[in-house]
């Protein structure tokens, strides 16, 4: 037995199930009551390899899931895991989405950015909200959660850059059209997660049209609980792991580095889009 103090140590959990979500995207399900809010993230530890942040993509009373896109060394190692394998989980961390105040939840997701937003859509549906889910990616095979979302009672709009399914174009173009035609009955907020260029466009659109919005941001995470200072953003100096990853529209607009640069694990600033 372990006495219960306030700690930040990984809890070892067996992977219950693994689902293929889309090309290079897998969902890992764990039997554990996590008690997170949509938008919060966990740190996934592979012993002796590394430990990295992933948003909670599903949760009910006795299980939760994360959805991992394979993009590099660590996420590829995650994709090689099998049901029954044990991994470490710390968290949940960070500030989640606030949706209780709004009647209409308008979601804009780019690629694996759909992970925290599908959990949000779920919770919002349970509370009887009207949910619109704009799901965008480069091509049809990159769209996650199609099954789950089309079975739920959300209004799902798929958008692909190559037109291989749904509307051809960008998710943000669809967002702008919806907001222009919106009849303004009932309170509405936009919820966005995805590539930073997309988030930047969401900020501009929502500020122009005076629509409330919350955005989930990414910066390199080390500790995840607000001590190491790795994830701080200019010029506010706030921590993405603590005051974020979800920030409101005004906060996002005051993050001067948004869409411009980010910091590597050494702390060096690199232009957004650069690899190293």
């Amino acid at each position: 037995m372990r006495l219960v103090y306030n700690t930040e140590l990984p809890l070892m959990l067996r992977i219950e199930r693994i689902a293929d979500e889309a090309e290079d995207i897998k969902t890992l399900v764990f039997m554990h009551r996590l008690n997170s809010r949509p938008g919060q993230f966990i740190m996934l530890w592979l012993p002796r390899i590394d430990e990295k942040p992933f948003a909670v993509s599903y949760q009910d009373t006795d299980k939760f899931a994360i959805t991992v896109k394979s993009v590099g060394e660590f996420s590829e190692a995650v994709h090689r895991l099998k049901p029954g394998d044990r991994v470490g989980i710390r968290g949940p961390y960070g500030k989640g989405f606030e949706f209780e105040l709004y009647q209409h939840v308008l979601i804009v997701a780019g690629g694996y950015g759909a992970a925290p937003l599908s959990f949000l859509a779920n919770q919002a549906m349970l509370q009887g909200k009207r949910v619109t889910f704009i799901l965008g990616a480069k091509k049809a095979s990159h769209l996650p959660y199609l099954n789950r979302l089309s079975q739920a009672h959300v209004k799902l709009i798929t958008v692909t850059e190559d037109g291989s399914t749904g509307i051809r174009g960008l998710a943000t173009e669809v967002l702008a059209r919806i907001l222009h035609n919106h009849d303004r009955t009932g309170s509405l907020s936009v919820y966005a997660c995805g590539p930073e260029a997309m988030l930047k466009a969401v900020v501009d659109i929502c500020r122009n049209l005076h629509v409330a919005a919350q955005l989930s941001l990414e910066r390199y995470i080390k500790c995840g609980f607000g001590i190491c200072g790795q994830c701080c953003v200019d010029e506010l100096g706030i921590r993405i792991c603590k005051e974020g990853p979800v920030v409101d529209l005004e906060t996002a607009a005051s993050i001067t580095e948004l869409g411009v640069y980010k910091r590597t694990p050494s702390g060096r600033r690199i232009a957004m889009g650069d690899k190293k």
Partner: protein
Amino acid sequence: MKLRNPTVLASGILGVTGSSLVNVARHGAGAVTTKSIGLNERAGHKNPILLAFDAGLINAVGLPCPGIEESLYELRYAVENSEAPVIASLFASTASEFGVVAERVSRAKPAMIEVNISCPNVASEFGRPFALEATSAARAVEAVQANTRLPIVAKLSPNANNICDIARAVEEAGADAVSAVNTLGPGMIIDIHSAKPILCNKTGGISGPALRPIALRCVYDIYKAVDLPIIGIGGIDSGEAAIAMIMAGARAVGIGSGIYYRGIDVFSSVCKEIQEFMDHGGYSRIDEMIGIAHEKEARNQK
């Protein structure tokens, strides 16, 4: 150097970026210390680099550093924008490299330079920390001294066999103050299900409540040994802990792990709690409490 209040942000906590330091100053710190600055770019260790166990924190961040140019950019931003004085912390692998970094960093005009001779997490790369031997500790401080006109604080290790010898050595080498202590150990945490150490570096330095009584004893001993002002660091998370440190001989207290336990407002909370104690105890100035835990003779005997 004049502090706004006796609480100082310790090095390596929320000190990677200039704007983060400014944010901590905005939340009430009396002074802020940068993450230790080195010459070359280093990514630090892989994750996990920091964990909280039942009695404190354990870290092996591995001295990540964006390189001197980027570090100076962050430092300048902090110096220009912070409400509180900025202390630049330095690390290096040789005494002469300490001199080079000190010269570069001084141009950004921080209020003071802290010489980190006591990091326990990079021994495999840098060898034994300077702060474990009086002669090497003195050499590092001398090299910094020769390359700056700024006041110098030497950061000591609780792992030294006789921390008083080290304190005397850095005093003679020209340090204007000492900060004590850096993290203890190293220690280790093992996950019994995977049978693996959890920190990627396997071992890490201990801070927070577990370190507090050791830090207190170190400061108590140093106060007897040298006349330098002391910044007492280790497990400060409340007014009570800060006052004990001051009574042991500290002039100011450093706070790092306390942010985990009390949030980023820990600086203003600790100041408020110190003030409440002083109001009740009949103290009007912090100075009246410095070193009063010592028997009178002990202080005179040195």
